[in-house]
Structures are given as structure tokens and as C-alpha cells.
């Protein structure tokens, strides 16, 4: 069960004390308080965000750099590896529930709130306020906040993006096979292809947003359709971007030869994250674009 049994009694590994958690705390504090000030038009906020973000970059570089160094100098054991794996798994689980709050909201709005707003059921007193309103999805609500708009179709760019992400899921698996076969070339090219596809996805998404804003009049203010559309696709796009940055770090490490067929937790963690982002997209495609 435990690796400790195989390695003798002094097998436990405890890391040296580290300044990076404090730096991480300061980074988060400056970024969030800076954001709170900026959205209330207090000038210093932007500088605080910049300071916080710089600290964040330094922190990730320093913290992960330290972990990589410890790993390469062979200080870790199987138990540490398992801790990292399980930690990543539960982190992704928490992310799943973050997205579920948005999917759940979409479900609630479409299945419960809007029918009531249209006068369905004995509890619908909203007819006093919005007498003629009948909610067809997509809707910007009884007062058509944000003006008339057109919904985003599913079978143009979104369908293409589905294919791109599914393909990128395949290429990252292909890279993993390369890693397990100790085939450096396959690993590097597989990762590079995955990053390329991820960035292509983001570019298409930006193009789609521009199209929505300029030609469809579909904005963040377009009632509850615009809200849910941009919130879900926006947070997903943010996660794809983060995933792509993580893949780039992994690519650099792969080129440096950090990974071996038996020791490559970082690669697998990022690959899991990428598959998670992929699965969320499938949910988006079905529930936001298609249905």
C-alpha cells in the first residue's frame, strides 16, 4: 500500500520551508483588492493589479522551479508523487463544481425562472409586472436589456472548435504515448500540436466574440442569454488559455528532457487539466450553443 514499506524507515519526505506561499498570498491580495478598486474607478487599482500579477508570475516561476529542482535532484519518492497526483485530481474536482454553478444557473433560468416569468403555474405573479411577456429561448428578458440580438448558432465556428479541442485531446494523448515510449520527438511534436490547436481555439473564440458584438448585437448586456453565454464560454476560454500556458511550460521542460517514462507527474497533471477543459467544452457545445 505504501511505498514506505519498500524503502526503509526514513523514507518520508518533508520539503524545506519556503517563501513562495507568502508571495502567492500577496499576489492574490494585490490582484483582488486592485480589481475591487479598479471596477469602482479608483486609479491606484490598476497598479495594484499589475503588481499582483507580476508577483504571481514570479511566484509560479519560483515555486514550481523549486519543486522541479527538488524532483530532478531525486529527493522525491513515490509517496510524494501520489500526493501530487491526488492533489491535482481534487483540484480539478473543485473546478468541475465551479463550472457546475454556471451550468446549474443556465438550467434554472431556462427550466424554472423563465416559465414563471411567462406566467406559467399558480405562483407566477410576474404577470402583474410583465403582462405580455412570453419567454422564448434565447431571450433578453421582458425589457429586452441590451436591445434585439441574434443568438449564436452551433454549427459554424462552435462546431469547428469542438473538432479542434477533440483533436487536441488526441494529440496530447499521442504525446503521452511518446513519453512512455521514451520517444522525445513524438512527445515534443505532440505537445506542440496540442498547444497550436489550443491557441487556434482561442483565436476562433475571439473572432466569434467580435462577430457577436459587431454583427449579432449579442453582448454581455443582452439579458440573461448574453449573461450566461459570455460567462460560460468566457470562463471556459480563460481555462483553455491557462491550459495552453501550462502546456507551453511542459513543452519547454520536455525539450530540456525533464521527463522520463516513469517520472512525469507534471505532464500528466496538465494533460488531465486539458481533458477536463475539453469535457467542459462538450457541455458548452450541447447546452449553450446547440440546445
Amino acid at each position, binding site marked *: 500500500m505504501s511505498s514506505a514499506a519498500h524503502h526503509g524507515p526514513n523514507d518520508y519526505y518533508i520539503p524545506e520551508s519556503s517563501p513562495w506561499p*507568502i508571495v502567492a498570498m500577496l499576489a492574490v491580495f494585490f490582484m483582488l483588492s486592485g480589481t475591487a478598486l479598479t471596477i469602482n474607478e479608483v486609479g491606484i487599482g490598476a497598479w495594484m493589479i499589475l503588481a499582483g500579477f507580476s508577483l504571481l508570475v514570479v511566484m509560479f516561476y519560483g515555486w514550481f522551479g523549486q519543486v522541479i529542482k527538488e524532483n530532478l535532484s531525486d529527493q522525491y519518492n513515490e*509517496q510524494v508523487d501520489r*500526493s501530487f497526483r491526488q*492533489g491535482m485530481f481534487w483540484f480539478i474536482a473543485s473546478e468541475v463544481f465551479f463550472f457546475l454553478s*454556471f451550468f446549474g*444557473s443556465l438550467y434554472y433560468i431556462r427550466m424554472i*425562472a423563465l416559465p414563471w416569468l411567462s406566467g406559467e403555474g399558480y405562483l407566477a405573479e410576474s404577470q402583474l409586472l410583465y403582462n405580455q411577456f412570453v419567454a422564448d429561448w434565447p431571450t433578453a428578458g421582458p425589457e429586452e436589456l441590451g436591445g434585439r440580438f441574434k443568438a449564436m448558432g452551433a454549427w459554424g465556428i462552435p462546431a469547428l472548435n469542438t473538432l479542434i479541442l477533440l483533436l487536441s485531446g488526441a494529440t496530447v494523448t499521442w504525446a503521452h504515448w511518446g513519453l512512455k515510449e521514451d520517444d522525445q520527438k513524438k512527445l515534443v511534436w505532440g505537445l506542440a500540436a496540442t498547444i497550436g490547436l489550443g491557441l487556434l481555439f482561442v483565436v476562433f473564440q475571439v473572432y466569434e466574440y467580435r462577430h457577436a458584438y459587431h454583427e449579432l448585437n449579442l453582448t454581455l448586456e443582452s439579458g*440573461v*442569454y448574453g449573461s450566461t453565454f459570455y460567462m460560460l464560454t468566457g470562463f471556459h476560454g480563460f481555462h483553455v488559455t491557462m491550459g495552453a500556458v501550462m502546456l507551453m511550460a511542459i513543452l519547454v521542460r520536455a525539450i530540456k528532457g525533464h521527463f522520463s517514462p516513469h517520472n512525469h507527474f507534471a505532464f500528466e497533471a496538465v494533460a488531465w487539466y486539458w481533458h477536463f477543459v475539453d469535457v467542459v467544452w462538450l457541455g458548452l457545445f450541447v447546452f449553450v450553443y446547440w440546445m
Partner: protein
Amino acid sequence: MSTATIDLAHDHDHEHHGPPKGLKRWLFSTNHKDIGSMYLIFALTMLFAGGVSAMAIRLELFLPGLQLLDPDLYNNLVTNHALIMIFGAVMPAAAGLANWMIPLMIGAPDMALPRLNNLSFWILPAAATMLILSFIVPFFPGGGTQINTGWTIYPPLSVQVGMSMDFLIFALHMLGISSVLASINIIVTIFNMRAPDMKLTQMPIFVWTWLVTAFLLILVIPVLAGGVTMLLFDRHFGTSFFNAAGGGDPVLFQHLFWFFGHPEVYILILPSLGVLASVVPTFSRKPLFGYSSLVGAMIAIMIIGMVVWAHHQYTIGMSLGAVSYFMIGTIIISIPVGLMIFNYMATMWRGAMTFETPMLFAVGILLMFSFGGLTGIMLAVVPADMQYHDSMFVVAHFHYVLMPGAIFGLFAGVFYWLPKWTGHMYDEKLAKIFFWVNVISFNVTFFPQHFIGLAGMPRRIVDYHVMFTEFNVLSSIGAMVFGLSHLLFLYIIIKTVRGGKQAENKVWEGAKGLEWELSSPPPFHSWTTPPKLAAS
């Protein structure tokens, strides 16, 4: 359950791993005991901050009419009291116990991810700073209005509050990050760092309660984060999640909030009920009654607790089917919770009981938490709740649940393990005085609130009708004594840390478990070698 034999020969190798000197020891710590102590000190500080706001509230309610506080400030204090107590005092204190005790109890050298552990803690002071900012900002010119929403921050009111609400939202985000990271760490520690031959079903119940609590946190905190993010966008970026004019629904926020908020109650209570599973068998000198049924009850509480959230919202106009479902689900939860209570009572049955301070608190919990549970069943019944809703009865109910259920459990845990942590025995006589003053003044404070609530006094309102005066005077007097009694707690803790009778390894005669095999206080790295369990 089990005893351990340790191979002490290896301990010499690790003597050079003593604690680093000075401030670095605390700022850069990777030591579960140091981080646990910081959690506990932070929680105690916040307990006093939340207590001061509660005493200000009770001073204002001492007599009808406006005495001390401007109504907006009163509302802000009500908001802050709840947030500080829940996120600042109870959760960090429970996390502090987890940090200290889980590695000791499962035979681990430390938490699985020690650096992440330090991050989980240090985000808390930053989040507390954000909370304080949200309180201070309205006092500056252009700072906007105070937070007058209560801790539930329902829209549309919370959309109209000024800048301070943004600080509150980001404070909640930071608290959420801290809790999720701590929970990940705890789950991984429990799954991956147990002594090689300790099965999941041999873990102390306290460890089990934290496993369940950490699951709950990972599942529900992100939903709160999503909800307040939508609130932020509604406030500043023109979205319509909670705005009916754009097709949204303010009630959606209530669902998101209570999907987090109801499991949060179990998050607050379960670790304390876990402490009881250590305390009660020790002072009853009997093995714990019904280990597997306790574990089963906890898991049932976790699962059912996640699907009954809307009993906080009976009066918003849900369909009959929905309220019936939420009512039945809520009442069903009293079965596993009652089962836990009966397990502890059966553990006491015919035991050779003695009543040291932790045991006094344990008995106090069983009595008063059960009482809070009974008023909970009253509130779960929809037609009755239509009457009780938003009255002082609700305030009395949840203080009877959370003070004994959460904070008394933490007190019990602190007194039970304090000799282990500090190496000194606490002053038993003073601690008993603290218990009696605390528990009596608690009842004087909150018991009358049942009556004024049933008689119709609403909660969260700065003024009240003169006919409620007598009970409010009584309640306020109780609250002053109750609040000040915690100074005695502080004094006992400081006194114990600074000195006292040397504690033995096994502090309590009837205690079982791995933590009592180590010295008091334990070595800097708790278990340098995996302890071997011998089933007894």
C-alpha cells in the same frame, strides 16, 4: 482501537531538523504543528473580533429605540458578525485542529503538501484584511454605502451596495481559495499519508469527520465562488443573472448561496462532533459505541445535506412539490444526526465517567445541540416556518446549533489536546469555572430569544416593540457575561502555554490513539518513521 510501537532509534537522525529561528519559522513554515497553531491563534483573534460585534449588537438591543448604532452600521455589524464567526473563527479553528491532529492521529510526519498548507493559512489574514476593508471603506468620502444585506448578500439589495460589497466578494473568494486548498491537502493526507497498516476503517472518527468535511468544502465552495462572481458581474458589467427585467431571477442567487450555505452548517459542525468521538470514550473509559454506524451517519449527512438547501427559502414562493421535497429531506437528516448523538450517549452508558473540562463541554454539546436540533425540526416544517421565518426564533435556533455544535466542540478539543500541544496541564479549576460561566450565560443569552421570536420579534432589525423589552434586557445581560467569559478562556490558554505541570505522553488515563504515543509536546517532525499498529 489500536496502539503503536515506535522505533525510537531513528529519532536521532532528525534532530538537526529543528524549527528555523525567528519570523521565518512562521512565515515560511512547512510544519503542520506550527501552521496548526497559527490557524488556532488566528481563529481566536477572529472569535474576539466577531464577539465584539455581537456585543455591540446586543448593547443596541438592550432597550427598544435607537441607542448607540446608526441602523446601517447595525446591519453592517450583523453581516460582519456572521462572516467573521463562520469564516474567521470556526472554520480556521477546525482547520487548526485538523492540522495539528490528523498527522498525529494517522501516524504521518506532516501534511501531504506542506507548502500548500502554509498558503492555505496565509491567505486567511489577507482575506480578513479584505473583510476589514469592506467595513472601513464606507467611512471614507466616496466609499459608498455600508453592507446592510446580512451575510447572505441577497440581490437586488447587494447589487445596490457600494464599493464595500466588492471587497466582501473578493474576501469570500480568498476565503474560498483557502478552504479548497486546505481541503485538498487534508483529503490527500488522509488517503496517502496514513501509517502503512492503518486502514480507512481504523482511523479515529475525528479524521473521518474531516474527510467528509473536506469533501463537502471541495464540492460547495466553488458554487459560492460562482454565485458571487455572477453577483460581481451583475453589479459592474451589466449582466442579468439576478435581474428579472433581463430574464434572470434574484431567487437564483438564493439557490446558489444556500447550495453552499446549508452544507456549510455541516462543515462547521462535523469536525466538532468528531472531537466528541475522542473525548467521550476517554472520559467514559469505554470504547466508542458503533464506529461503523458513526461513519455511515456522517456519509449520509454529507449526501442528504447537499440536496436540502432550499429549506432556507420556504417563503420565496416555490412550488408545493418543491417545498414538500425540501421539507421531507430536511427532516430525514435528523435521523443520521440523532444517530451520532445516540452513539455518544451509548458510549457513556455504564462507563466509569469523570467530568474533566473536555467532558463537560461534550455533555453540554449533547444537551444543547440536541435542543437546537429539535427547534430545527420545527423550522423544517413548512407551514410552521411561515410563522417563524426571519424571527428571533431562527436566531435562537442556529445559535443553539452552532455555539454548542461547533464552538463548544472546538473548546472541548482545545482543552483535550492542549496538554499534548504545549506539554503543560491547563488549570482544571479555572477551566471548569470557564465552562460553567460560559454555558450558563450562553443559555441566558439565547434561550429568551425563542420566546420573543415566537411572539413576533423580527431579526436583523435595529429597533423593536416595547413589549419585547424584558426578554431583550435579559438576553443582553447574558450576552455581556458570555462575551467577557472568553477573556478567561484566553487567560487559561496563555497560562498553559507559559507553564504548568508537565504533561505526560498519555495525558488522559482512558485515552486511546496514536497521538498519545508521542511526547508532549511532540517532536518537530511528528512521526519520522511510520508507526506500527497492533490491533488490540
